[in-house]
């Protein structure tokens, strides 16, 4: 808040009679702050050059035991932990490649983009969110993995692979995906006599929420949904209903019948008052996993890893039921999140970096270990038929949740991502918050305004209506 210059000069205030001091200090403070804010930008201009790296090819004469390297890997929380755990088995095959996993995930994206821009400082391997892959691959500062990765195209869901390819070149390898279902607390459902099997549609879900609220005397809410952070649920519902933010040509496609249905579900949830107004990933949110405040979490498979991490003592208390459909017989899954691994073009040890990605993302044992230990649902399809998926998981009271999550994933409609996806998502979050605060106007009106805002802010055209109805 107050500048450092201001703090240092506190003692000199005794000389307050001298008129010049404030003028000088103010100017200096302003200049100092402006300089601090912009020095980074200028640094980029100094050293940022253009990169057009060669596609990665491997020397077949080097065997895994001969390959040497010392690589840095960036990732966040459970994902990074999961990679770290894979280093010893990786070293069984590649004994001379040293791997350091850097787990500080805070503002990883910004730091990563700045390193790409500066041309130095990037790790050898980095995790990125799937939705960001488009933004990074178009910078051409990621290694072109096409020659070594082309063989894996059939091994990943097409909707995921699409986000890793830019102008026909592969720049990222899918890691985990986020098939959605509803995590619920068994004891609460038992106590208030609600049968999870009876919940098939979002109407059923809201009905169950009402019962829960009534039978618990208002103590237990069905879900956590903060009006300031509704984009996650919106995205889940939009993808479940084959809606889009952007059409195939990158035009704004949010004002669609699918999105109207999404809005109506959110509106009914809020009107029923079955949501606890808790910010996701906040302390209150983590605390809610251990209390009776919230009964269910409609979200992606990786959330299981978060529960295990923050509330290990709740083992056995959790169950999972499939995501409610819009109408009976409708699709009962969706996707939220998921990540990829990439190699920045500035990496000097690409063969070692690729060996690590190849092992962790494209082998059966590594993928199964990651799912077993950290609930990272593998995007690597060849293992989905594995008996491992039918093993009961004691954390969920012996339920075979892996099979449940893997059901129908090939039917999840793809969601188009653009380089400004997260910016668009932020406008969506802001608009939803305002909509909920101002008494929830008609969804059609809301979407028309949002469409207009996105078009203006992102400088994109609005998709023709006819196109939307056909999609």
């Amino acid at each position, binding site marked *: *808040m*107050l*500048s450092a210059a*201001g*703090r240092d000069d*506190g003692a000199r*205030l*005794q000389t*307050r*009679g001298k*008129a010049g001091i*404030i*003028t000088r200090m*103010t100017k200096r*403070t*302003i*200049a100092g*702050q*402006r*300089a601090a*804010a*912009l*020095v980074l*930008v*200028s640094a980029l*201009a100094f050293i*940022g050059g253009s990169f057009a790296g060669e596609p990665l090819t491997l020397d077949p004469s080097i065997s895994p035991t001969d390959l040497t390297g010392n690589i840095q890997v960036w990732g966040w929380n459970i994902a990074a932990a999961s990679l770290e755990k894979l280093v010893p088995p990786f070293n069984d095959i590649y004994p001379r490649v040293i791997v350091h996993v850097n787990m500080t995930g805070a*503002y990883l*994206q*910004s730091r990563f*983009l700045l390193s790409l*821009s500066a041309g130095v400082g990037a790790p050898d391997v980095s995790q990125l969110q799937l939705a960001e892959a488009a933004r990074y691959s*178009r910078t051409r*500062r990621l290694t072109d993995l096409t020659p070594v990765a082309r063989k894996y195209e059939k091994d990943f869901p097409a909707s995921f692979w699409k986000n890793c390819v830019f102008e026909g070149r592969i720049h990222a390898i899918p890691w985990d995906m986020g098939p959605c279902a509803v995590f619920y607390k068994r004891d609460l459902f038992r106590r208030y006599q609600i049968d999870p099997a009876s919940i098939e549609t979002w109407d059923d879900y809201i009905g169950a929420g009402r019962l829960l609220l009534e039978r618990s005397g208002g103590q237990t809410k069905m879900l956590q949904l*903060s*009006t*300031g*952070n509704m984009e996650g649920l919106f995205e889940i519902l939009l993808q479940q209903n084959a809606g889009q933010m952007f059409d195939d040509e990158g035009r704004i496609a949010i004002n669609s019948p699918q999105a109207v249905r999404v809005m109506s579900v959110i509106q009914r949830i809020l009107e029923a008052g079955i949501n*606890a*107004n*808790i*910010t996701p990933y*906040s*302390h*209150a949110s983590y*605390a*809610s996993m251990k*209390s009776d*405040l919230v009964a269910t979490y409609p979200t992606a498979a990786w959330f299981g890893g978060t529960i295990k991490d923050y509330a290990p003592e709740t083992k056995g208390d959790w169950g999972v039921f499939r995501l409610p459909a819009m109408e009976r017989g409708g699709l009962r899954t969706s996707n939220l999140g998921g990540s990829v691994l990439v190699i920045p073009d500035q990496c000097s040890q690409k063969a070692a970096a690729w060996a690590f990605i190849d092992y962790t993302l494209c082998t059966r044992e590594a993928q199964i270990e990651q799912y077993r230990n950290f609930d990272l649902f593998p995007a690597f399809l060849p293992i989905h038929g594995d008996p491992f998926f039918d093993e009961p998981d004691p954390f969920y009271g012996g339920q075979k949740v892996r099979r449940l999550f893997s059901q129908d994933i090939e039917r999840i409609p793809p969601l188009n991502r653009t380089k400004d996806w*997260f*910016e668009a998502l*932020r406008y969506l*979050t*802001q608009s939803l*918050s*305002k909509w909920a*605060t101002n008494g929830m106007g008609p969804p059609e009106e809301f979407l028309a305004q949002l469409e207009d*805002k996105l078009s*203006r*802010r992102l400088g994109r055209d609005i998709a023709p209506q006819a196109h939307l109805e056909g999609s």
Partner: protein
Amino acid sequence: MSSVAARRNSLRSRIWRHRHFYLFISPFFVLFGIFGLYPLLFSFYLSFARWDGLTELTWAGLGNFAALVHDEVFFTSLWNTFAIGVLYVPPMFIGAFVFAIILNTTWLKFRAFFRAAFFMPVVTPMVVVAIVFILLYGQEAGLINYLAARMGFQPIPWLVSEQWSKPAIALLLVWRWTGYNMVLMLAGLQGISNEYYEAARIEGAGAFQRMWHITLPLMRPIFIFCSIMSLIGTVYMFDEVFVLTQGGPGTSSTNFGLYLFNVSFVDFKFGYASCMAYTVAFFVFITSLFILRLRRSELT
């Protein structure tokens, strides 16, 4: 013609003659040039361009400024900045002044302890402060709402409603910066000679009159200094908002500093961010000049 050349020659020769001295003072100028002047000029240039730091820079002319005029989030952020300022500055000033007066009295014991205690929030790392305040502010399980519920009040959705996010931030700011301003004001109070008060007492002035006619007028330079620091602090405020609400819910607590950060280091729109920063810096500069002009007329 020849005289000009002669003068130039003599300047050059004078510089050459004093080259060692210039060499000694050069580090500042070199560093300032690289880290101060160059960014300032480059970001001014960027205000007329579009650049994400990675792909080609393109000239935008006045495009960024035109976009700024239609940017509702920008105006919301300015409004929020103003609103947060109005919410926290007056209570902070009053609190700081009252505490400074109390600490300046002769009868108070443990003065050093109180002074340190009030200054503590300034030196506490913001992340720690934020975690504590998030725990206090929680709607469902926060300490404040827990106490409010025990006393029969409705819970306040501090951080999760658009109405309460600004007061929540303002409250944190009051807590955090009152001590800092108090120290400044205390220094000011101690600088007022006791003779004025003695003379006033002899003349029969009461406590209120002494405050009104001696303390307040003599404290004016300190008040103005604190106001300017608060103005700048409010406009460029970032960490409090960033860790407490991230500008949400919606844009209800997005202030200028946070919006600038989002545009530059989340969206990577350096051109637009520079344009925004320059526009606001211009107005801050004008306002500061205005406040100083007020003060100058005061003194003369």
